[in-house]
């Protein structure tokens, strides 16, 4: 989670670690005014795909007038800012040297007046541009997130979670920087540079040329050097601190092992090495920025001195061809010298902007790619809304493969009648799970079709299908929030009574009573961490609450400790009642409870029937059962 926090923190790549306790009171006071946006209700559609490829231009085009307005304000502020140095020249030449106090008063009046206008305009500009930028960011977040929701499951298995995360965080932030600072600054600094050169030329052409030909290239070269070196250096610092923190994180989580394997000394040395590398990386950037900051200061004042010296010579008229018209004045020289550091500022900023533009541009390209990825499972343009699904599933001659060369399922047909429970058994990798995913339309078969209540899955609206079909996968994923939030996930409007009923159905009511905070216990904190069995039961409660017509349990009861096992069996009894269900289980005890057992092997179904039928057939299933019985009887436990 990079890219949070202040400029400084993000340069060093530190993650956000929570609001410090001494700040909590103040942030809480702030949050009192914060609207909760409860009436916000965004509509989501599987249909609305991106019309045009994403680009900065068509992203901004609805706001083009506002953007132009913003740029106009920027130009005004810059012009007003440069009035000052010009007024200094006037004050020296027209008032101070000729000793005319009334001109001085005039100059002061104009100056103060311009300050008021400049203050007002720049305040307005900051507010206007800032608000516009925030609005754009909000829209972009919604747009990217909605598209993520639209994309199919294969996309999420292919892409690394961290990279997708970056699209929504650091890329959007890079874009936001580009819009709010980059574009504004580009215009502001370019204008300011042009204005400054204009004024300087009006003061003296030769001096301006000295500045442009000698000093500016030196400054430019130095700045480019620094930006290159420092961005490389900061990337290194970020990597090194990530090393330090991940080592710390792992040491803390695995400290029991560290202690029992006597690894303390080894780990101390190892951690010190990482911390040392981090220090060296910091020293590298420190040397670069110490060089740059002292060198810019040097160039700045050396240039001022040279300008003064040459200006002096012009005034002394030692070298008359430098100023043939003879309009150069003391005031102009002072104002000129005053402007030297102002002249360098836009040069430095513009170089900095180059980086900002580069990362902004990279972000645009990556977002374009993401937003341009179509979902592989598409919804028809006028889909059928299926109501009160019965749960009759017909699989007709389907074939499917993840990659073209390796077919997972070939010409498979199957009919699951409404209200029946079927379990898939078979060797790992035979395609049991794939078959379940196809029924849930997480993927579309390459050939053949799947019908539910005689509707082709492809003709149904995805929402109506998924709201009546529940899938419980192997890894019970818990969301940030309380146990209640997690159970309620499948049905936001469920009452506390419904939730308790779901808990009872899966047998976790005693667990919840045992927890001091009950249903409100947060799921993620270490102290209250739930065992994998308890998590599994929570996931089942979640499925129970959604009251699906068709329930798919994809290895949902594996990886469970012995104690929870009996509870899960009881939970299943409650859960499966009156539903069409597909169970994939590697424990035969679970699989055996189905009405029909299908052995999935060699890209198809090789055996199917009830438990007794299959035992009688002496095939693959009977063999599996045999091994399983032996394992359990190997302990010669006589059981009453």
């Amino acid at each position, binding site marked *: 989670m990079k890219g949070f926090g202040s400029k400084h923190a993000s340069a060093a790549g530190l993650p956000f670690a929570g609001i410090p306790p001494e700040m909590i009171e103040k942030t809480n006071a702030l949050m009192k005014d914060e609207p909760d946006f409860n009436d916000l209700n965004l509509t989501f559609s599987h249909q609305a795909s991106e019309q045009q490829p994403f680009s900065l231009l068509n992203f901004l085009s609805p706001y083009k007038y506002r953007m132009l307005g913003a740029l106009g304000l920027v130009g005004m502020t810059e012009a007003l800012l440069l009035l000052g140095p010009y007024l200094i020249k006037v004050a020296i030449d027209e008032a101070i040297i000729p000793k005319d106090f009334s001109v001085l008063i005039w100059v*002061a009046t104009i100056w103060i007046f311009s300050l008021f206008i400049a203050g007002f305009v720049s305040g307005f500009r900051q507010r206007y541009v800032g608000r516009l930028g925030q609005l754009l960011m909000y829209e972009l977040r919604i747009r990217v997130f909605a598209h993520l*929701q639209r994309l199919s499951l294969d996309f999420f298995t292919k892409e690394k979670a961290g990279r997708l995360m970056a699209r929504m965080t650091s890329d959007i932030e890079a874009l936001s920087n580009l819009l709010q600072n980059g574009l504004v600054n580009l215009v502001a600094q370019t204008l300011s540079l042009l204005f400054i050169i204009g004024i300087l030329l009006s003061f003296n052409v030769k001096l301006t040329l000295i500045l442009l030909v000698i000093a500016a290239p030196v400054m430019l070269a130095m700045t480019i050097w620094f930006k290159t070196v420092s961005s490389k250096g900061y990337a290194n610092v970020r990597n090194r601190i990530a090393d330090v923190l991940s080592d710390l994180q792992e040491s803390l989580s695995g400290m*029991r092992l560290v202690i029992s394997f006597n690894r303390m000394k080894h780990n101390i040395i190892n951690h010190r090495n990482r911390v*040392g590398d981090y*220090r060296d990386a910091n020293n590298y950037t420190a040397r670069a920025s110490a060089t740059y900051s002292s060198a810019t200061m040097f160039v700045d004042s050396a240039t001022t001195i040279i300008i003064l010296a040459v200006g002096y010579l012009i005034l002394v008229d030692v070298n008359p061809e430098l100023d043939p018209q003879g309009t150069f004045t003391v005031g102009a020289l002072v104002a000129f010298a005053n402007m030297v550091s102002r002249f360098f500022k836009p040069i430095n900023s513009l170089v900095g902007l180059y980086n900002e533009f580069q990362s902004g541009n990279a972000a645009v390209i990556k977002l374009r790619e993401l937003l341009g990825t179509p979902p592989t499972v598409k919804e028809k343009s006028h889909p059928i809304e299926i109501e009160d699904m019965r749960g009759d599933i017909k699989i007709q001659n389907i074939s499917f493969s993840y990659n073209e060369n390796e077919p997972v399922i070939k010409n498979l047909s199957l009919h699951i009648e409404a209200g029946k429970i079927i379990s898939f058994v078979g060797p790992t990798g035979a395609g049991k799970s794939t078959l379940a995913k196809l029924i849930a339309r997480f993927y579309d078969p390459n050939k053949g079709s799947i019908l539910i209540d005689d509707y082709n899955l492809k003709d149904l609206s995805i929402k109506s299908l998924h709201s009546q079909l529940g899938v419980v996968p192997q890894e019970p994923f818990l969301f940030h929030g309380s146990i209640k939030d997690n159970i309620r996930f499948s049905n936001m409007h469920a009452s506390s009574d419904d939730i308790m009923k779901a808990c009872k159905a899966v047998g976790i009511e005693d667990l919840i009573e045992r927890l001091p905070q009950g249903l409100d216990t947060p799921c993620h904190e270490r102290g209250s961490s739930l065992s994998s069995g308890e998590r599994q039961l929570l996931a089942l409660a979640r499925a129970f609450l959604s009251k699906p017509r068709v329930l798919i349990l994809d290895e949902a009861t594996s990886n469970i400790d012995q104690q929870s096992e009996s509870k899960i069996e009881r939970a299943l009894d409650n859960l499966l009642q009156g539903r069409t269900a597909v169970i994939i289980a590697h424990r035969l005890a679970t699989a055996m409870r189905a009405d029909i057992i299908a052995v999935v092997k060699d890209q198809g179904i090789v055996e199917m029937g009830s438990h007794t039928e299959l035992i009688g057939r002496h095939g693959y299933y009977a063999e599996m059962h045999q091994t399983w019985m032996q394992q359990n009887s190997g302990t010669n436990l006589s059981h009453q």
Partner: protein
Amino acid sequence: MSATLIDAAQKQAGAPSLDFEPINVEARFENPRATIDTDRAKNWFKRVFPILWVNKWAFSIGIAMTILAMLVGVALPAMTGQIIDELPNAITGNQPDHFLFLVIVMITLTTLRFIFGFLGNYQMSRVSNQLEADLRSVIYNHLVTLSFSFYDNIQTGQVISRANSDIKAIQMFLMMSPMLLTSVLSFVFAAVYMLSVSITLTLAALVTTPIVYVLSMKLRAIMFPLSWLTQSHQADVAVIVDENINGQRIVKSFAQEQNQLTLLGKAAKKLQWVQVRAIDVSSIFNPIIEHLTVLGQVLVWVYGGWLVIQGEVQLGALVAFNMYLMIIQAPFRFLGLLLQMEQRAKASAGRIFEILDEQPEITDRANTLTLKNPRGVLEFDNVDFAYKDDPVLTGLSFKVESGETVAIVGRTGSGKSTVVRLLSRFYEISSGSIKIDGIDIRDLALKNLHFHVGQVLDEPFLFSISIRDNIAYGKPDASQAEIINAAKAAQAHDFIESMEKGYDTVVGERGYTLSGGQRQRLGIARALLVNPPILVLDDATSAIDVKVESDIHDALVNLMTERTTILIAHRLSTISLADRVVLIDEGKAIATGTHQHLLETVPRYSEILSQQNRLSEGGSKS
């Protein structure tokens, strides 16, 4: 094999030093030379001071250079003023020699300021980075001394946060505060020059400064909580995104796309709200602060211009005066910043001290004994133990002979795991004793004890390093052959070899790229590599196939015939591997004997077993 006991006196007499600590990494950096002051009564700065003090020379050089840079730089504006005063003379053609001299001096001073400035800036940063590194190491070095009970009660995230933003806060304050010295010095020089030009002009110039100071303080006070809230809202958005990426299948399964989009919309709106609020505040304050500073300049030019017209002040002095005005305003801003930083650093230091003041609960006694090649006779004698105030064991006694395999059986929560944790002295017993080969484990050096007792826990923690390094965790210098042998014994070799990168496969975060059974086998291989004479398997095979499990036990016997093994298990298949069963109930060992014997004679035993194994015959129900 016979046990050898080496006592402290013998060790000093020149016997080979036995450290029992595996080290296979070369130290490339020296450890911090100081740590914090342990006296809790002292204020935070004094407690951190020793870490600063060891760097005193590097620190002094940095300060000296910075002051030198300031000293050579502070004269420049005055000289610029002198050149400008030369200008009218120049027009009349006087004193060109003096002018040349000035220019040369100024160029020399700027060059010197460049050199000193660079050295000072770089040196101070180096010291600061050193300080940060030392603080990080000090905390880490302390963390590894703490006991299990500490780790039972902490949240990892919080410790990491302390190691992050809190260290930064302290580091920044420690480095910035000496800068106040140079800042004050340049203030004095600038003030002297300005006052020498004109007292009234100085007052006029500084008229807006207090207002600017107050406004900046106020702005910062408003912005600070706003920026924290922004960060926290950004994190909220990130959490929702993260969960929707990793839990996408659940979102789709329950058709929750719209609800999740709305959820994100709310979080994004809140983020927008707080950012807009920050923009609104700063768009009012910033222009005022900026332009008030310029207003000070305008006053100087008008009033100063009048003074020049009156002939009281030279034009050059007026120009120089304006430059010093910039210098003199800096300390005001700096002071405000520093005061706020001190507040933060103090709070941060408090949080770091909380960790550093934590004392390890379990430490070596004064004269520890060192055991070599123990036979592995274990004896629990009347052991009492309580977690906090919750008694777990009351008068537990049992004995395990050398080379025996004993299963500990008891209902959930009966304290089975506690028993084996006490054996490694991860927690301290309240009364009674635990002995290995007749020696109280509290008389042994902890490292020595841990070296001989290998523990495999049920949820094996794997580090996100290669499989090879995970197995070699307890013996980092193990050869490839040793690692493969351990993996073979744990029946892990085949699945490791079937992976594309074999032993070099890097295990994902917390090892979740592997199945539960695979993780457990790696955990066993890790313990077997050390080949401890006493091995504890705490439900360590729960996710492993029955057949594979019995292969592992065969391999265990082959590796060392005289190994003492303690098993904690729920499965009958695992219990059947033991020579003997110890039944624990209500804090005591209530019975011991073979599985068959207990089954026949102790009704409580089959009661507990059946409760745990209701499922093992669940199949015959249908």
